[in-house]
Every structure is written in structure tokens, then in C-alpha cells.
């Protein structure tokens, strides 16, 4: 019987990895992937909690997270395509017009 | 524990044996002969009776061909792709039942490899993984044709997955379970779903063709446009892997179609009777149950295979935009409408 805490810790680890990636990488897609990773670790946490609390609400929330993630992916990737059309790059260091 | 292990592996072996060992090679042969028939030519008829041994020759040929890997290819992914192609194809059929729950040595054994709660759902999920092999193959070969093929494949498979899944959902709605066994039982109790949901079946059929990249949807490997599509660069066993996985996928989907819409292993209740009758002559009942059920199932599947071949050699290929339009603007709305319709029928007590 694996204690739920392990799952939680694993999720935390994955989340950390995801954050690190999102913060350090420059390739837009990779950053996006890292964000997905974070989302999934959150899902894992939620499911773990629903297991811990014997309450399926957590799973339902995950369900919604999946849907939202789908929407987010669609729009985000569309954005990348649009950006790429104009700038011929999705390197975040080069997409830096938003400044003084 | 041990018994379950044995039982499961036994069922697995049966499936692998029947599907890999028998049907797939047979299909290759059928495809060639049938196409020949349609095109009014003899087809392979030298090797063995009616050229039945032709598949063996093919396999041998594949084995001894040179295995080429393009220098500019992304080696790891290049090698990975075929494996990914075979895996889902081989795993999906574990959810398809080939007989009722029987009693073996005083234990209840369901004649389905995996009794997972999420049966069909998992099946679809794993099947959806099949796309990666094509995409990766297309990308790893580092060749514009393969890349185009890969891109097309990804777009096409995703698009038609929707229609297919929705059709399946429509089937599952009245059944109220993800177990294909329950689907079969439901059809036993009522009638074949092809009669209950003709539209759903039609959608599933079309989606099936698209999911297996068969004509008229074989754009990922449209030889006239992309040479060989995503597997242009592949040769020898790697190519065979793609080749096989395509046929296995076809078989699995055919079996799935048969199970969803044509009563699966059931034959208007005759399956059990025949089995008991045979058991009366020789052997255990559970054995015959499995055997007859499998026979019925494979027969139905084979019918679909023939349909596959027939369609392939009958219809021209779609244009890519036509494909997309069909998928998104025709099939998807129809599938949704179908689902809603079924739901309404259920609520109104018709189904």
C-alpha cells in the first residue's frame, strides 16, 4: 500500500521540474510543454488528494483541468503559429517588444 | 492469482495466435487475390495452393532485405517509430471479448483478455497513440515527403478520432457500461446495433477507414503525391512493422466494429448452443465456447476486411482539403447529432 504522501511528493517534484523548465527554456514550445507538465503534476496532486480524502470531487476537477488544458493548448499553439508567421521565430528572447 | 495469470496469458496467446498468426497473413493474401479479382488478373497463385503461402514469402523477403537508415535521419526516433506503430495495434484487441463468461475448473472466467473497468475507453485511448508512430516516422526520416506524410497523418487521425469516439459513445449510451461484453449482451437482449444505430455505424465505418489510413483516406502514404508518405525511407522489417501494424489495426478495428454493431461473438444465441452441442461430443464447454465465439467474431471481422479491400480498389483518393472538410464539417456534426438523437431516444424510452 503506497502512502499517498509519496504521490504528493512526486507531484511536487514534477511541478518543480516543470517550473524550472518554464523559467529557463527559451523555446516557446518547450516552455509550453513544461507548463503542461506542471498542469499534470497538479492533476496528480488532485487525484492523490481525492484518494486521501475518499472524495471524487478531486477527480472531477481533474476532468475540468483536462478540458481547460485542451483549450489552452489549442489557443496557445495558434498563438505560436501567428507569432511565427510574423517573426519567423518562437524564441522568447527574440519576442521581446513588450518593454520600455 | 496464479490461475488468473495463466488464464490471461492463455487468452492473450489465443488472440495473438489467431490475429497475428492467422488473420494478418491471410489478409495480405486476401488483399492481393481480391484486388486481382477486381482488376481481372490472376494475382499471386504460384506459391502453395491458390498462392496461400505468398505471405510467408513476403515475410521472408522482408527479413532478408537490407535495413537502411538515412544518414540525416534522427536515429533514435527513426528506430522508435516502427515499435510505436506495432505496440498500440497489438494491445488494443485485449479489450474485445470473444465469448461469454465461462466456468473453468470451478472459476468464472470472462473470455476477454482485459476486464478493465474503462474497457472501450482505454481501447480508444491506446489506439489514439498509434498516430505517434506515423508522425515520428515522418519526422525522423528527415525527408520532406515523409514529413508531409507525418503531418497529414497527425491531422487526419485526430480529426477522425472525434467522429469515431462519438459514434462509440452513442453505442455505449444505451448499454450504460464501458465493457464490450456488456455491449454484446445488450445486443443479445435487443438487436444488433447496426439496426438500432445505422447512422452511428456508418460514421464509425468511415472513421475506421480514415484511422487505418486506408483508401480513400490513405493520404499519409499517398504514393502518387508523397512517394511512400511517412514510411518512404523505411525498408525491411521496419517497413514490415508499419505494414503489419496497419493490417493488425485493421483487424482490431474490424473486430471492434463487429463487436459494437454486429453482436460480436454472439450469433443470435446460437454460439452457446453450438458450443454446448460440441461439448456434448468432445472437450470442455469453456473451450468450445471460446473457440466458437472466436470463430464467429473472426468471421464477422473478416467480412469487414473484405469490405476494406473492396473499398480500397473501388474508390479514388480524397483530396486533403476534402478529407478535412468531410471530417470536421460532415462527420463531426453528424456524430454529434447521432449522439443527441440516441440520448433523446433513450430518454423517450425507445432505446
Amino acid at each position: 500500500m503506497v502512502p499517498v504522501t509519496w504521490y504528493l511528493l512526486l507531484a511536487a517534484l514534477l511541478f518543480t521540474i516543470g517550473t524550472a523548465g518554464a523559467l529557463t527554456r527559451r523555446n516557446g514550445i518547450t516552455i509550453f510543454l513544461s507548463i503542461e507538465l506542471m498542469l499534470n503534476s497538479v492533476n496528480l496532486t488532485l487525484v492523490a488528494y481525492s484518494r486521501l480524502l475518499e472524495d471524487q470531487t478531486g477527480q472531477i476537477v481533474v476532468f475540468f483541468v483536462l478540458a481547460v488544458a485542451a483549450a489552452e493548448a489549442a489557443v496557445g499553439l495558434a498563438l505560436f503559429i501567428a507569432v511565427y508567421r510574423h517573426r519567423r521565430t518562437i524564441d522568447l528572447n527574440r519576442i521581446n517588444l513588450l518593454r520600455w | 492469482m496464479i490461475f488468473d495469470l495463466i488464464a490471461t496469458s492463455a487468452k492473450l496467446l489465443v488472440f495473438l495466435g489467431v490475429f497475428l498468426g492467422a488473420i494478418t497473413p491471410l489478409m495480405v493474401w486476401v488483399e492481393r487475390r481480391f484486388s486481382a479479382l477486381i482488376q481481372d488478373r490472376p494475382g499471386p497463385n504460384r506459391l502453395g495452393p491458390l498462392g496461400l503461402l505468398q505471405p510467408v514469402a513476403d515475410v521472408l523477403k522482408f527479413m532478408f532485405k537490407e535495413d537502411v537508415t538515412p544518414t540525416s535521419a534522427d536515429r533514435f526516433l527513426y528506430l522508435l517509430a516502427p515499435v510505436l506503430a506495432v505496440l498500440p495495434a497489438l494491445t488494443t484487441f485485449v479489450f474485445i471479448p470473444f465469448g461469454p463468461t465461462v466456468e473453468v475448473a470451478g472459476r468464472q472466467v470472462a473470455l476477454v483478455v482485459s476486464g478493465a473497468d474503462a474497457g472501450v475507453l482505454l481501447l480508444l485511448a491506446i489506439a489514439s497513440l498509434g498516430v505517434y508512430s506515423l508522425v515520428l516516422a515522418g519526422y525522423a526520416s528527415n525527408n520532406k515527403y515523409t514529413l508531409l506524410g507525418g503531418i497529414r497523418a497527425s491531422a487526419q487521425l485526430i480529426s477522425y478520432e472525434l467522429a469515431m469516439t462519438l459514434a462509440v459513445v452513442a453505442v455505449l449510451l444505451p448499454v450504460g457500461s464501458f465493457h464490450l461484453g456488456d455491449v454484446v449482451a445488450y445486443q443479445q437482449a435487443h438487436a444488433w446495433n447496426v439496426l438500432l444505430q445505422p447512422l452511428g455505424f456508418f460514421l464509425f465505418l468511415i472513421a475506421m477507414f480514415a484511422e487505418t489510413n486506408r483508401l480513400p483516406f490513405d493520404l499519409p502514404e499517398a504514393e502518387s503525391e508523397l512517394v511512400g508518405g511517412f514510411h518512404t525511407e523505411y525498408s525491411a522489417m521496419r517497413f514490415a512493422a508499419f505494414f503489419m501494424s496497419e493490417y493488425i489495426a485493421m483487424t482490431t478495428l474490424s473486430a471492434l466494429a463487429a463487436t459494437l454493431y454486429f453482436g460480436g461473438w454472439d450469433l443470435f444465441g446460437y454460439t452457446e448452443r453450438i458450443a454446448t452441442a460440441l461439448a456434448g461430443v468432445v472437450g470442455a464447454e469453456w473451450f468450445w465456447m471460446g473457440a466458437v465465439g472466436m470463430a464467429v467474431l473472426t468471421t464477422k471481422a473478416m467480412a469487414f476486411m473484405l469490405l476494406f479491400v473492396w473499398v480500397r480498389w473501388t474508390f479514388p483518393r480524397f483530396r486533403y482539403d476534402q478529407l478535412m472538410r468531410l471530417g470536421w464539417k460532415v462527420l463531426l456534426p453528424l456524430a454529434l447529432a447521432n449522439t443527441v438523437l440516441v440520448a433523446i431516444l433513450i430518454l423517450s424510452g425507445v432505446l
Partner: protein
Amino acid sequence: MTQYLWLIPLLPFLGVVVNAVLGPRAPKGLTTAVGVGFPGLSLVVALGALWQYATQLHPAAVEQVIYTWVGGETSIRVAFLLDPLSAVMLFVVTFVGFWIHVYSVGYMGPEADHYSYQRYFVYLNLFMTSMLLLVLGNNFLVMFVGWEGVGLCSYLLIGYYYDQDVPAQAGRKAFIVNRIGDFAFLVGMFALFAKFGSLDYSAVFGAISDNPALVTGDYAFGLSFASFVTLCFFIGATGKSAQIPLYVWLPDAMAGPTPVSALIHAATMVTAGVYMVVRTNVLYQLAPGVSLLVAGVGAATALLAATIGIAQNDIKKVLAYSTVSQLGYMFLAAGLGAYSAAIFHLGTHAFFKALLFLGSGAVIHAMSGEQDMRSMGGLRKWMPVTAWTFGIAALSISGIPFFAGFFSKDEILAAAATQGHWVLWAVGLFTAGLTAFYMFRAVFMTFGGQFRGTEEQKHHLHEAPAVMTLPLVVLAVGAVGAGWVGISKVLTPGHDWNWIHHWLEPVIAQVGGEAAHGGEGAAEAAHHLSLGVEWSLIAVAIVTAVVGILVARSFYGAGRGLVAGEDVLAGRLGGFYRVLSHKYWVDEIYGKLVIKPLAALSRGFFKVVDGWIIDGFLHTAAFLAELGGDLGRFTTTGNARNYVLYFFVGIVILLGWIVF
């Protein structure tokens, strides 16, 4: 029809809306139809309601709640009240108002371009709405809304020719002067609300009548509550009704179009103060001191304005000061507790003063804008209707028997005399004489003698169109007949035909033994004076008036060879004439004593408080923000990852804070 009471103010407002929406592009005829039609409808409804109300055997006040403004136990409701008092006001306002609207069509028609024409009617209808709210409201707040509404319209219409300097200035003056009064009014209202938790007339007055002691107790500044409130209200009244010390705006208000002067600054709005005092008579009866003050101020104003009036050459100015002085009369009456007399005079005055103004308007029209009487004369030949009606009005205001003014003025003087306020009586009498004098000075200068204007003015002279003369005639009838509703007992021994008096009795109920006087009291007292004395007083009044007229005739009568641009009076009165013609330099004195210091003070505030303190704060804040921005902008590298990093670090810190 009483159930349609709410329609009466609503209809003119519809006129406002429709005309405002139609805009200046609408055909002139349509604008006229709307602008005059809706007040007309309102008049019809009003007459219907009045008829039904008056013909009841025992008229019970009609109250009509439109909607609840402030809920709760201290509820303030927008509700209308039709009782004898508001009935009289309602009649005057709608009737005179309507005819002045009609007159306006002829008066404004030619001169105004269409935009200002439409604007004019929008304003005028809006005024009707506000005025009707004022008189029909069943509580002080609704009255105040109307009060402010008429103030606004007055401002808008005085400054109607906003492209000229004088009218604009006059408008501002009127508005600002009125603010002072309104402020006092508000204070009074708050005091009432604080004490009674309601502003409904019925509630407040009911409570007081039940227990007069409630308000007679000491309240503030050594005044009883009644005195305090009434004082506040009276100050408000002095603002609206142009009494000393706040009368200065009314003469300037003549800068507006003449019909406006007739309607707002003679007939209706300026009488609002009187109406208010009478409305709150219950309180005034319990505040004898203030009442006396009111009477005094009224008398003083009457005298002062009359004296100024005799030295004015601008026909409208004459009428303006006459208005002020007549208002003084009304306050004199109200102060003496002869509330019915005050309202009576208000009614008659509305007729003959409106008539006078409209007549002067016709004259000014004929003179193509000329307002100086010294260059008029002999107009009788060209515009007989105007001349006759003007003359009737003049006779009426002078108090010649059988004309309306006679009866109402007589009531007031009688009230003064019967209460032994002989000083006030004398002042009133003298003023009456002056009134007669300056009115007929105007009549003779304008209509009598030879024409003193330029040739081409003479060439243009013409009688006003029917649309203007008709109202003149109608009002003339009123100027004669309006008096017959209140014939004093004294004149008809053994009979009591003083209809208005009895009509108003329910409103002017007696309160508290201590308030001995009051309309009823006046009548009672009248019997204590012997009939002979009464008659002789009346005779004296008549004689005074006649004398005034004769004097005027001796100065300005036909064949006195008046010369354009000169006033024979100037020679006779010498220095005093200058004093009068400069209106005792009141405006200048105010300018020195009030306006200058105020302006200086505000300039100081502007410089110190606004310029240094407030702006200082603002600039500092702005500077800090700018500084922060200058520093902070270096964090916006434009690289999204950096932003995310800030965000992330913040989260981590928060989390750490939560965990530990």
C-alpha cells in the same frame, strides 16, 4: 378629474421632452403646437379638476401619491395635494401661464431664429412643470424640487439671450442671489425633518395644531422652533420673491424676453415665496415676532421699490419695481396674518401685472425694441387694444374701485389698520399712492401725448397681432373680474361675499390661543373697528390713488410737451431723483460690501488652498508615481520569462510564508 392630478405637471413636461427630442429641425408650427398645446391640455385638466373639487359640498383635500422617494417610517413620497390654497395657485399658474404661452408665439415668433424659438418653449414648459410641482407638492421636498426647478428655468430664461453680456450677467445674478435664499430654505426644511421625521404638510401641521407647545419652546439663538424655521423660510422667500435684502436680482431679470418677465418674474415664480409663507401659516401664526418682521420687510420693500419705480424710464424696469413693491404688499399681508388677503392679492396681481408686462411687450414690439418711455408717447393712436388693456391693468393696480387690485389691496390695508399697525398702514397707503403715480406716469408717457420716437420708429408702429392681443383681452377681463371673488364684508353690509376668504379658511385654520390674529382674526377685528372708520379708511385709500393718478397726469399728461430723453420729474426732485434713478446705489453697496470681499476671499482660497495644498498633494503624488515608473521600467525587460520569474518568486515567498 381630480384623479388626473398627476397629469397636470406631467403634460408640460411631455412638452419639454417632445420638443427637446424633435429638436430645432422640426417645423416651427409643430414646435408651437407642442409648446403651447401641452400647457393647454394641462390647463384643461386643471380646470376640470378644480371644477370637480370646487363643486363639492365640503371639499376634502385630494392627496395623490405617485411613488415613494425615501422609504421607511420617515418616508418621503412624491405626492400631490389639491387643497383650497394649491387650488388657487393651480388656477393662476395654469391659466395665466397658458395665455402667456399663447402670447409668446406672437412675441417670440418673428424675432427668434428657430433654434432659440424651440429652446424658448422647452424652457417655458419646463418652468410650468416646476411651478406646478411647487404648488401641487404635498410635502416640502417636492415643493423644494419645484422651487429649484423654477429657479433654474428663471436663470435659463433670463439668460435666454446668452450671446449678449447683460442677460448672461443678470441670469447669473438671479441664480446666485437665489442660492442664498434656498440655503436658508434648506436649513429650515432640515430642522423640520429633524423634529417631525416627515416633510408632509399634513403630518407637520397636524402635529403642530395638536400640540402648539411643541414648536413654541426655545430652540436656537434664543428663538423658538417656530421662529427659527419661519425665519429660515422667510429668508428663502426673500430670495425667491425679491424682498429686501435680496430683491436686487429681479429688476435685472428684465433682461429676459418680456413674456418671461410676465410669467416668471411677475405672475408666478416670484409669488412662490408668498405661497410658501401662507402654506406654512400654521408656523407663522406661532411666531408672531417673525410675522411682524415679515410684515415690516414687506412694507419696507413695497415703499423702497415704489420710490425707485417712479424714477425709472425703462418701461420694463418700472414694472419690475412695481412687482417688487406689490410682492412687498403680499408679505405685508402675510406678516399681518391676513393670509387670505395675501393670496387674494397674489391672484389679482398675477392678472394685472402679467397684463402690464404683456402690454409693455406689445409696446416694445411696436417700438422695435425700444424700451425707454421718454421716446414713446401717443401710442394709443396706433395700438388701441394694448392701450386700453394696459390702462385697465394700471387702474387695477392703482386700486381704483371695482377693479381687481382695489379689493385685494383694500383687504391688506384693512388688515393693517384693524390690527392697529398704523405705521404699516400709512406706509401701505403711501406706497399705494406712489404706485398709482408711477403706473400712470408710465401710461401717460407711453400712450398719451405726442410720439417722441424717431421717424422710422414711427413708421413701424403697429398694433400687435391677434395672437398677442387676445391674451391681453383675456387677462384684462381677469384684471377686472379677479377682484370680485373677494369683496370685503365692509363694502356689502349684512352680506358676506368674500368668497376667497371662506374658500381659504380650511388652510388657514387657527392655531394656539396665543396667535390671536390670522385671516379670520382680521375679519373679526374688522367688526371691532366701527363701520364708519372702515369706510373712511377705504375712502382715504381711493383718494390717495386718485391723487397719485392726477399728479402723474399733471406731470406727464397730454399737452405737457414732454421731450424725448428727458424726465420732467428730474427737475422737480433734483438730487433725490438721482438717488432714485440709481436705485439708492444698492447694487454698488452690495458690490462693495459683499461681492468684493467674497471674491477676494475665494481668490485667496484659490491661490492658497487649491494652488498650494491640493495641487501640491497632486503633484507630489504624480511625481512619486513617475519616479516609481522610471525605476520600475527597468524590470520590464520585454522578456516574458523574466515576468514569469517575478511572479514565480512571489508565489514561492508566499508559499514559504504560509508553510512556516
